[in-house]
Structures are given as structure tokens and as C-alpha cells.
């Protein structure tokens, strides 16, 4: 069994208008897991539960091999929220001083290197930073206290492709020693296709899929044919069927085996967006 840095078991949390039900997944060391799902699907709730920002109704979380997420564990977790959570009148040097007084393992030199690398000036208040700069600053903070696990909520949303590519490179660099891991939620599935090792898909508070990304990209496919042909496919191959006005589609989990069995049916590779749409479809 792989060494897990994070394990989520049957997590449930109910709010008046939303419920997260029975979400389970594990993140091994040295891996990046992409958390995907529509707005309000439960991605942020899952992250908050992992971080202990709210308590689950049932289920359990194990971080760094033991139950729960204590204050000591949070020393080793770097977190990035989708909004910069610091007073906008601060300067980046102020933030360095605040974090130095908050994290025992704070590495001021590393922080300053990231500030330089990201070209973040100390002469501007945070309110004058662009969204990209704010996100880079959040990342600089998360990466400057020798965290072993990064938990990132929509870190690349609203950023241009150049900045996004820079940030993705940082993730890959972060996990390169095989001891560090990243859990990242994003609507930009193309980013996750580039860097994620695992994909966890949550839809309306329920876990729809937790799978190795390569299995999805290279294994899953969409078979397209008329309704009668799709309905005739052996159910062992089919994860989901969708019937449209003019044609029908089936989501298959092993397109190589499917093509051997049904060579006459066209089966296309699938990307994460298509997978989400297919699994969310109620047709």
C-alpha cells in the first residue's frame, strides 16, 4: 500500500441547503490530486473539513498518517484560498513578519526568494496587487514554511495562461522529491490534465469518481452511436449513457477493451470537461 499523506473516509456534512455525503479518497505522498466539480459541489467544504475549519457530521480524516488535523499538523500544511486573506493595507514585508511569528518553520530567506522570483514589490500595499500577484503572494506564503502538503482552493482561476503555467511548474517542483503532495481544486481542468496524478470529482456533494488521471485520459472514452446501438452495449463496459435528440453516447472506462469488443462503434478519448459533463448528465 502506498504511503498516504491524506486520507478522507466517508466524510459527511450537512448544511440547511447542502449536504456532502460519503466522500472518500486518499492522496499518496509525491502526488497531485485535482478536485473538480461544479460551483457548490462541495470542493471547498471538503477542504475546510480536512483543515478542521468545520467539523464533519460523520466520517474521518487522517493527515500525515494520524487522525484529524491538529495545530501541529497545520505547521506542515500550506493553504491557498481563492481570495487573499490578509489586510489589504499590508506590505509583503509585513506579511513576512506576521508569518515568522506564526510558523515555527518559517523560512524568511525562502520567502524573499519567492518574492523576487514572482516579482512582488514591497513598495505597494496588497490592495494595489493584481489578482495574479495576490495569488503568487499566497503561494509564496504557503511555500515558505516547509509544508509537506499544499491545499489549494482555485489557485489558478482568473489568471492568465503564463502565470498559470508558472504556478503549475511550482506544483510539479514541490512534489518532485516524492515526499510532498498537493490537493488542488480547480475549474480549469486543462491545468489539472497537465499536472494532476489523481482526479476526484464531486457532484452535488457526492463523490462521482476518484481515479488515476492517466487511467481517465488514456483509458476512458466516449462511444457514440444511435440509441439502439448504445443500449445494446454490454453494461460491464458502460459507466454512463446519455441519449440526445439525434445520437447517443456512452462513457466507457476501458476504451481499448471496448474497441476490441465493439470495433464497429466509434469511441473517442475523453478530457476532464467531457467526463464531468457526462457524469453530471441526467439524460
Amino acid at each position, binding site marked *: 500500500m502506498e504511503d498516504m499523506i491524506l486520507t478522507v473516509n466517508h466524510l459527511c456534512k450537512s448544511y440547511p441547503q447542502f449536504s456532502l455525503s460519503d466522500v472518500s479518497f486518499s492522496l499518496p505522498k509525491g502526488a497531485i490530486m485535482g478536485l473538480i466539480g461544479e460551483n457548490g459541489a462541495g470542493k471547498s467544504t471538503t477542504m*475546510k473539513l480536512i*483543515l*478542521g*475549519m*468545520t*467539523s464533519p457530521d460523520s466520517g474521518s480524516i487522517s493527515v500525515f498518517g494520524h487522525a484529524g488535523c491538529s*495545530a*501541529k*499538523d*497545520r*505547521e506542515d*500544511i500550506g*493553504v491557498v*484560498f481563492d*481570495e*487573499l*486573506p*490578509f*489586510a*489589504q*493595507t*499590508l506590505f509583503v514585508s*509585513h506579511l513576512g*513578519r*506576521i*508569518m*515568522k*511569528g*506564526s*510558523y*515555527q518553520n518559517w523560512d524568511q530567506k525562502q520567502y524573499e526568494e519567492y518574492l523576487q522570483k514572482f516579482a512582488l514589490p514591497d513598495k505597494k500595499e496588497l490592495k494595489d496587487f493584481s489578482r495574479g500577484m495576490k495569488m503568487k503572494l499566497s503561494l509564496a506564503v504557503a511555500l515558505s514554511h516547509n509544508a509537506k502538503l499544499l491545499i489549494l482552493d482555485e489557485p489558478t482561476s482568473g489568471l492568465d495562461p503564463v502565470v498559470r503555467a508558472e504556478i503549475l511548474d511550482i506544483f510539479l517542483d514541490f512534489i518532485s522529491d516524492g515526499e510532498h503532495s498537493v490537493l488542488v481544486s480547480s475549474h480549469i481542468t486543462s491545468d489539472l490534465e497537465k499536472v494532476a496524478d489523481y482526479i476526484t470529482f464531486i457532484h452535488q456533494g457526492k463523490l462521482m469518481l476518484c481515479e488515476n488521471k492517466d487511467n481517465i485520459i488514456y483509458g476512458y472514452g466516449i462511444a457514440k452511436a444511435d440509441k439502439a446501438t448504445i443500449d445494446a452495449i454490454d453494461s460491464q463496459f458502460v459507466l454512463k449513457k446519455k441519449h440526445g435528440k439525434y445520437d447517443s453516447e456512452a462513457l466507457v472506462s476501458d476504451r481499448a477493451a471496448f474497441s476490441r469488443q465493439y470495433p464497429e462503434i466509434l469511441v473517442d478519448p475523453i478530457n476532464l470537461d467531457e467526463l464531468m459533463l457526462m457524469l453530471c448528465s441526467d439524460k
Partner: protein
Amino acid sequence: MKGLILNDFLSMRKLLKSILFVFFAFAAIWGFMDQPETGAIIICVMGISYLFNLFTYDEYYHWDQYRSILPVSHKQIVLARYAAFGITSLILLGISSIYTLILGGAARCGLMLLVSLCMQGYTTAVIIPIAYKFGMQKGRMLYLLTMLIPFGVMMGVTIALSEAGMLPTGGMLALMLAALIVLIVLMVMVSIHISIKIVSRKSF
């Protein structure tokens, strides 16, 4: 915890600069009216009231959420906020004491210290749990309502003592100060206990 206290002061630094101007104006006006102790009391209470903004900043900038993922306990979060109030109170009391001592003498300074300490202690003990529980928008209103009672009593006592010419003697002042400090410490301790409970139950 040091980081949390630092964040509070650095977040407030711009506001503190603008407040200084108001304080100078108050000091000048009340000094000119030969009531430095009244001016000093107002400065002490006003100064501590400006810290209410910290709770607004917590909510507005989502620092309250971020703070919850820092490697600090709920107790440390709460103690850091009380420390920010405490440090500010001491600075205000120090400055106000010098001001009153120069313009009004030791007895009036003692009276000012008594009332200011009482008001600051009351403010700190009441506002922090209220702000944690209800947020600053509702909290401010609730605090103002609760403030009417001790403010009325304190001002009444101060005016009555001044008009009767019954300025406290050294021994009496020391006894009153000691009793007051005990009362304030007790109030703040209960307040801290309640605040920790509120913060530990908070979900984001």
C-alpha cells in the same frame, strides 16, 4: 501568537496614525477647558474602541478563516486578541497619565486612571466575546447598549466627586485601584473563557 498580535497592529497602523490627530485635538480642547482627566478618559475609551475595527477586518479580509488554519490553538487566537487590547490599553493609559499629571496633578491623574481602567477593562471584557459571537456589525450595537449602564454610573460618580470636592486621598485611591484591578482581572478572565468557547465552536 506573536504573529497574530503583529497582524492586529500592522493591520491597524494606518488607522492609528489618523487617530493620533483626533487625540491631539481632544487633548488640546479638554486641556484648554481645564478638564484634562475628562479628555484623557475619552481618549482611553475611544482608543480602545478603535480596536473594534480588528473584528471588522477579520471578517472583511477573511483573516478569521486564514487564522484558523495557522498552527495556533483556539486559546492562542483568543489570547492574542486580548493581548492586542491589553497592550493598546497600557499605551493609552501611559500617555493619558503623563498628560493628566502635567495638566491636572496627581489626584486628578489617579481619578482618571481609575475610571479609564474601569472603562477599558469593561470594554475589552464585553466587546470581544460579543464580537466573536455576533460579528462586529451586530456586536457594535449590542456593545453600545451595554455601555450605557457603566458609562452613566462612572460619569455620575466622577462628576459627583468633583463637585463635592471629594478627590480621593492617596490611601483611598490605592485601595480603590486594587479593588478595581481585581474586578477587571476577574471580568477579563471570564471574558477570555467565554471567548475561547465561542471561537472553538466556530465553523467556516
